[in-house]
């Protein structure tokens, strides 16, 4: 099967990759673009550690053929991280110790971003509901849910984009 060229936006830059058919967005990010913040827990859509945003919506990059993001905007944890300091969601995760081994954290942060971009004031129930597809085996979900709530407060208070 012949390879094809796929062009998409990664954060604010345009990238062009050559892929064999059905190569996943996860494989391209990690293998070709060195963007390893997107994790690889199961490669079968079961753990959420590979969550990225495509045009603002959370997707499991391990299940998505990269051809499907042609011409669209992909947001990964690398593109969310400011050049200095942390995004308020990252700061909230750090402050709440909302991680232990850290492997699920990138997916959790990306999912939180998708949620808060869409719903700036979610209740605990909504946050918990939003996170159901992302598995954490260490910390438990309470500090993660708390961190997302704290991040929502910080973003509403106008801290968005402010390096902290």
């Amino acid at each position, binding site marked *: 099967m012949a390879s094809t060229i796929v062009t998409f936006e990664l954060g604010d830059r345009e990238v062009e990759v050559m892929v064999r058919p059905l190569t996943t967005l996860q494989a391209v990010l990690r293998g070709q673009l060195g963007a390893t913040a*997107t*994790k690889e827990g199961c490669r079968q859509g079961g*753990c959420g550690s590979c969550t990225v945003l495509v045009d603002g919506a959370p997707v499991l990059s391990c299940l998505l053929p990269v051809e499907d993001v042609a011409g669209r905007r992909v947001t990964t944890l690398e593109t969310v991280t400011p050049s200095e300091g942390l995004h308020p969601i990252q700061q909230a995760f*750090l402050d709440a110790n909302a991680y232990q*081994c850290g492997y699920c954290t990138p997916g959790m942060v990306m999912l939180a971003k998708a949620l808060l971009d869409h719903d700036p004031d979610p209740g605990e129930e909504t946050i918990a509901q939003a996170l159901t597809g992302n598995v954490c085996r260490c910390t438990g979900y309470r500090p993660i849910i708390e961190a997302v709530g704290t991040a929502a407060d910080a973003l509403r208070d106008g801290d968005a984009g402010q390096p902290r």
Partner: protein
Amino acid sequence: MSAPLNVVGRSVDRSDGIGHVTGRTLYTGDRTFPGMLHLRMVRSPVHHARLRGIDLSAAERVPGFVRALTAGDVPHNRYTILSLIGVEPEEEFVLAEDRVRFKGEAIAAVLAETEEAALEAVSKVRLDLEELPAVFDVEEALRPGAPVVTHWGSNTFMYEGHPCRRVRLGDVEAGFAQADHIVEGVYNTSPIEQAPIETTGCIAVPEANGRYTVYTNTQALYFSLDNTAIILQVPGNRLHFVGGTVGGGFGGKVDVIVEPIATLAAMRTNRPVRYVYSRSEEMQVSSTRSAWRIYFKDGVMNDGRIIARKVTSYADSGAYSRQTPYSLTKHAANVGGPYAIPNVSIDAYCVYTNRQPSSAMRGFGVTMGSFALEVQMDKIAEVVGLDPWTIRFLNAYRNGDLKPHRKPAEDATLIETMQAAAALVGHELPAELLAMTSAPRTDREGGR
């Protein structure tokens, strides 16, 4: 020179916190090296079989195939992880020789330029297997005529010549004869996969100076290094293991499984080799927590005192023992519980079956024993008509009480811990329980 010791009592930022929230933490599988090969494993499709042949010819024709490794390529193919602490015999095969003992057992390692090529080559390896009867239950494995799992002919691990780890205190049969009630229980638990989100894996990199750097997510760095040195028959100083960043382990990453074969592959090809489990390998091949069956028989007096306890435990080690012999020893030392019982007999068996090997998982040996023990304590409370708190206070260790393994309790805190726990959950304890302490028993209370 030394900084003041001022950390205790303060909240200190984790050194890896920024890396975790930004995704900059480099886990094993995030690394890549020029010329890196990919290792995928040919595995047994059946639970138990004679291995009569491995045909690699079709696999070798897959574009990108580099080479395969089979048992004959491994310098010291039969090993046991705990040989480092004197456990024997060597019983597990890095790559299967003439027999496979569980579904998923490693048979041949395939190295290829890409992961896809390695997977394709693996799918084209033809195995000549003669399937054998398999056993999956600990007690069935101990019956005469059961399929024999180990290469030396016994389905139990031997503890100093005995088929089980034994603990004896007093005369348990005399205790049963005196008891007002006999309370029996059997407790079964299933295997549990630790299921870390990051799967087990490593990358072995040959260095120009003849050494090998092995990036690994093992939970047991020096165990892995030493076992790799034994298996490859090289001095330990030729191996440099880099670890510490582990994407979840819970005991699932203490076995030495991926590093020896990846390092051997790096030696034989002089190229970096990546060997990272797929999710299905993590779930279906890597060690689980053991399945357990635990029998309790307790002799209990009308006043709630337990005067005799007999426990027979079976841990399903699966096809190889890994850390399970150690798990059973911990189990035997703890399953009597934090209770003062004058007559105790414990037999704890590490049993081989054709299930995937089991090994460490959080509190292994003790956790499942505690489950059985504490359900049994509730059962006893019901039989003698006491509440679950009282039965535990009555029987709790106090300083000076003899534990089943004949060591006196010196730092007993169960009574105080239960008093604190009751306060925290808002449970009002009767005055006589609140008045109790772990101080040594007086003669009046004696008889323990």
